[in-house]
């Protein structure tokens, strides 16, 4: 009896110490399950010259992004991104949830499933984080038709297609009350994206994508059609020298975006094309040209009525993967209002913590 009690005490003690070990500290507070965290700060200093109004200048925080990622349990992995932006025309900052989604861990080979709020896979540019943009602002075509960062709540299913090249097909359903659709409507918007990669040589690839997004049309648009669809095509050529680390690299990319064809007078469409070249270890040079032609009464995000042409050129110095400095000249030319402006911008950004690699 005495021995039994003794061994029970020993056993209890062992269990108790084991419990303490598992929780990491005596207080039961542990860091071991914290998500991987990264923060990116993006700043810009700008001088804008208008042809028919006073010049503007300023320095501001363009965006601060906080990224958390971790495995939730044996079934899900989570990704959360908060972004802080200055509010348009105000001295205050607004915070938005750019992403809060979970990916299923136990799906059959070749599939992936995402639930929550995420960047909608439309074309190439809409999915980029602001600090990964090739130019300081998104192309006018992307901004007019897809808004500033198309992040919505819904479900996304991707399948790898059994073809000789790399091909993914993504289908998704998202809430329809987004900025680009009817924000009163409760109906769903849905879409699909096909992404295809071909290796041309060992060092160069071509990506060809097609996107479709359809949802309840906004009120102004409603008189014409109850549903609005947007289609897009994108093509990207990449070449990276494999012989030298940080050797020369070239990207040429273009995207074409076209909402529903309405009638002869109103043929909304937009495109951009850019090229970026790494000419020296940490130095990149870039040039882009783009156009949007649309009606701001119908497209709530449209930058202005009529046709806008943009031309931008920049020089980027990225001393490491975690910081970059960029100087850019951008010329926006509004054909309808004969208003144009020239922007000189300096942008700098840093990333701390563990930021997941951006897609190829």
């Amino acid at each position, binding site marked *: 009896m005495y021995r039994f009690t003794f061994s029970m005490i020993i056993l209890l003690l062992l269990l108790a110490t084991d419990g303490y070990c598992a929780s990491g500290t005596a207080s039961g507070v542990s860091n071991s399950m914290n998500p991987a965290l990264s923060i990116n700060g993006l700043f810009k200093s700008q001088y804008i010259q208008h042809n028919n109004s006073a010049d503007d200048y300023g320095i501001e925080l363009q965006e601060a992004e906080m990224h958390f990622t971790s495995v939730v349990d044996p079934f899900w992995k989570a990704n959360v991104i908060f972004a802080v932006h200055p509010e348009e025309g105000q001295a205050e900052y607004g915070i938005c949830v750019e992403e809060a989604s979970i990916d299923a*861990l*136990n*799906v*059959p*080979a*070749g*599939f*992936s499933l995402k639930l929550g709020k995420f960047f909608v896979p439309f074309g190439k540019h809409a999915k980029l984080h602001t600090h990964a943009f090739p130019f300081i602002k998104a192309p006018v075509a992307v901004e007019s038709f897809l808004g500033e960062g198309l992040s919505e709540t819904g479900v996304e299913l*991707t399948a*790898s297609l059994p073809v000789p*090249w*790399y091909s993914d097909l993504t289908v998704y359903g998202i809430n329809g009350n987004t900025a680009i659709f009817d924000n009163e409507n409760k109906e769903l918007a849905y879409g699909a994206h096909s992404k295809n*990669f071909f*290796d041309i040589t*060992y060092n160069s*690839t071509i990506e060809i994508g097609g996107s479709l997004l359809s949802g309840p049309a906004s009120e102004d648009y409603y008189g014409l059609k109850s549903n609005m669809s947007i289609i897009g095509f994108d093509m990207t050529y*990449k070449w*990276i020298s*494999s*012989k*030298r*680390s*940080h*050797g020369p690299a070239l990207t040429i990319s273009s995207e074409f975006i076209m909402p529903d064809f309405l009638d002869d007078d109103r043929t909304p469409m937009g495109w951009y094309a850019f090229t970026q070249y790494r000419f020296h*270890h*940490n130095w990149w040079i870039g040039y882009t040209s783009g156009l949007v032609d649309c009606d701001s009464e119908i497209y709530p995000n449209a930058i202005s009525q009529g046709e806008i042409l943009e031309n931008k050129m920049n020089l980027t110095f990225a*001393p*490491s*993967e*975690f910081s970059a400095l960029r100087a850019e000249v951008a010329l926006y030319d509004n054909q309808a209002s004969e208003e144009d402006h020239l922007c000189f911008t300096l942008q700098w950004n840093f990333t701390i913590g563990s930021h*997941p*690699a951006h*897609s*190829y």
Partner: protein
Amino acid sequence: MSRNILVITALMLLVLTLPGISTAKLKVVATLNDLGWIAEQVGGDDVEVSVLCPPHQDPHYLPAKPSLAKKLKKADLLLYNGLELEIGWLPLLIETARNPKIKPGSRGELECADALEHILDVPTGHVDRSKGDIHPLGNPHFLLDPRNGVKVALLIAERMSELDIDAAERYKQRADMFQASVEKRLPEWEALLSASRNCPVIVYHQHWEYLLNWLDIQTIGSIEHRPGISPSPRHTKDIINLGRSQKCVYIIAATWDNLKIAKKASERMDAPLIILPGATGAMEGAEGYLGLFDYICKELSRGGVDGVRNE
């Protein structure tokens, strides 16, 4: 009607099991050519090996091309170096591949650094990125010590045996054979470099620490003093002065390093620059893991003794 359903179900089952029947071989994908070569020695006819990073490319910066993810889609076993060498591209490729067999933590993925007993250059004290943005867990280039190659081969054999029990005996045998062939050559390589023992040398990137540690050659500094960050002109000047004062015997660089800076340092220091293959097959004549050390030891012995420049 029900017969049709039965026939269709049977056909579908057949189609589903076909890949299982036709591919009896274990599909192995290795991140590095060295690992791929070792896996072929250990796996022999029981495996089918493909490699993600070609030998002439710096493994720190492989572009994560989707065609590489496609190689991973059908893999039964992924072999990677580890110690965050592949951190910039492998997680993305694994995610893009959507292959549950090789997802982190599964039996189908093997971090080969697990075979090591001793990791070099493990940062001590406070660690942050002011010291560079790669090598935070210590120096990952351990495959440049052939004795580590043997340890990795034995570990690979163990894992292959777990995944393919029927061939377990053969994996073990082949790994033992590999061990014997490396151990037979070790004295030969060491003898070739015996004259260079304790000689001071400078490296471009800290890629050669395990190699030089094995051969008892002393590294006095690196031109790229913070891993992954281009050397500043000031540091280059300092390292040249250091090389001169310590009578640096030669400078070692990999084919993918910034050879312009390395050549400049070599001229100013009046020490020959030896360009070496950073991986199996990275240069002509360095084919195979054993061939890699044949090449490296021969070049080092020439460079060290008669000061031949290899450009």
